[in-house]
């Protein structure tokens, strides 16, 4: 069982996303995360799905995705060199000595504080999944008020291009 990052281009039409998610639930495939947004060509959306499965299952997932009429192209970008990024916003309690400590941790992880009140910070952090996980591990958990993550988006390195 391996973690795979599947990228696909799909017609930007109503209901297209539900065909993708419906396929995963109907065939009992796993979704760790899913991100979607239009591309530079607004008639197309790009979806990044992180899934865990054996090679056979991942092969079936890519074939089944390709079979959906509105899907234009599918590629498992984790088969070769690629970059993954995820964005996280964390709201933390920032009072007393914790206020300075939070600022320091945010700097170490190259985060940015984008909202400040007398008692809270909102820290913006980007990186791969492991980096965001380790930030959560590194700070005092009791100070976390809420977190929100976008899920992974990814792109192939160098000449590996997903385009029509």
């Amino acid at each position: 069982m391996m973690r795979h990052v599947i990228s696909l281009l799909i017609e930007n039409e109503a209901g297209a996303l539900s065909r993708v998610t419906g396929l995963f639930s109907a065939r009992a495939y796993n979704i760790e995360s899913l991100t979607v947004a239009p591309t530079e060509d607004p008639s197309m959306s790009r979806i990044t799905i992180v899934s865990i499965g054996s090679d056979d299952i991942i092969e079936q997932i890519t074939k089944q995705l390709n079979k959906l009429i509105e899907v234009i192209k599918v590629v498992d970008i984790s088969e070769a060199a690629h970059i993954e990024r995820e964005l996280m916003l964390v709201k933390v309690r920032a009072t007393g000595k914790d206020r300075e400590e939070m600022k320091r941790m945010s700097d170490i992880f190259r985060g940015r504080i984008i909202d400040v009140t007398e008692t809270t910070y909102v820290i913006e952090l980007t990186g791969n999944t492991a980096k965001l996980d380790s930030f959560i591990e590194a700070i005092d958990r009791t100070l976390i008020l809420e977190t929100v993550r976008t899920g992974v988006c990814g792109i192939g390195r160098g000449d590996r291009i997903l385009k029509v």
Partner: protein
Amino acid sequence: MVLTGAEIVIRCLQEEKVEYIFGYPGGSVLFIYDELFKQDKVRHVLVRHEQGAVHAADGYARSTEKVGVALVTSGPGVTNAVTGIATAYMDSIPMVIISGQVPTAYIGQDAFQEVDTVGITRPCVKHNFLVKDVRDLAATIKKAFYLAKSGRPGPVLVDIPKDISATKCEYAYPKSIAMRSYNPVIKGHQGQIKKAVQLLLEAKRPMIYTGGGVILSDAADKLIKLVRQLGFPVTNTLMGLGGYPATDKQFVGMLGMHGTYEANMAMQHCDVLLAVGARFDDRVIGNPEHFAEVPRKIIHIDIDPSSISKRVKVDVPIVGDLPEVLDDISRLLAASGDHPDEKAVKAWWKQIDAWRGKDCLKYDRKSKLIKPQFVVEKLYEVTKGEAFVCSDVGQHQMWAAQYYKFDKPRRWMNSGGLGTMGFGLPAAMGVQLAHPGSPVACVTGEGSIQMCIQELSTCKQYRLPVKIVLLNNGFLGMVRQWQEFFHGNRYAESYVDALPDFVRLAESYGHVGMRIEKPGDVEGALKEAFKRKDDLVFLDFAVDPTENVYPMVQGGKGLTEMILSEEL
């Protein structure tokens, strides 16, 4: 030319040369029905339940090379149609279903007869559309027909809100459709085809296994040519019957859960397997781990890449349209000048003939009770193998598949994938309309026939002289058989008590009914029925209630772990 949405729908159907549309009217499709009323090119067949409409369109499509078309209203019209749509989807039948929807402005407001049609049908269609702008309507219908019949065929649904069917716009039917996201592969990969030919030439114990794809792609001629060229044994799946002539000596019978002993043994023990338009499903190969115990090289030709290496790992995958690929293999074989290993193949045939010697379809011919197998054999004889045979689902379906020898494609219509009881009679209506004057039989059980019995009324209205061959054993036979084998003879709810008098039931619909209770009367009754060319004849055969279907591979068991008849 400026037309309303409803007029556009009818124009599009005429452009697609649709002969028949099977449907049932309702509020959301009234504008469309009004336009149907004003013309006579597209003939509407009024069914008695929307499930019947979709099965009838399905039977029409299976028995022809055309797309079946159904028309249903919103809400319950659609939900009733879902079973039919899922049936067609599982068997890859090209169909277009047009459904009415509540007016655009009402969508999402829980309006009267509103359901999320696109949502409900999404997992059981090849594709579906909700038309939100009348200017998209003609192109959408064109796309629907194109998608339904190209690539791996399947049902496509077009949902049309009522206001769209009343709105006017400029109409022009597109001549062709190009979709950047949909381009089925037709031509097989030549390198893979070369590898396949090499494997076939090296085979010591070859086997050819073909499925519904051969029927759907009209590849039977090319298949026959290749099989004869190779001299290898060939088996068909339940969906593939008729793809290769059943009376030919190279045919070893159907394989699978109720396949012949020789077909299953040969499938398991072959060293090179050529799979053609089949998908290695659970009812065909049994337990995949058991199947994998014998090492063999597998060549798999299919138009759908996702069917390849799904349940069984394949050595030479070939994606493409079967007639093209089979033709390429034939030509390459002929051009190579090489021949299969004659000595090895001869020894393999000797082995297969030994398996054949088991005579696994033997049954008690001296019984005082009518044996269901006997009825199907007589049906075959009386119709000289020329009938279009539709079946429902259960024991009778398996007996029809085992004992009616289909020599031609598109003569055998059954719900193989979804296993939908109630399929047979409405499907037979579609077949009879497509082939007026030809003998059409519906082999059924007393459980299945009651699931769409209301269509007897449709048969009366359109004078469809279907012959209903009811193998009445008073049990939900296949359920009873499983309970006998696997649930300690506890016949939980498998006994259908309080059956109607089918003769009088048929008569009340204005048809002819016959009850047959003795083996000696079977042939005469069938002859009499088929002589009545203009009448629907309902033949109620009282068959042996204890008879089981053999051979049988229990679910989860290996293909060769067959339960054989006690007659052997």
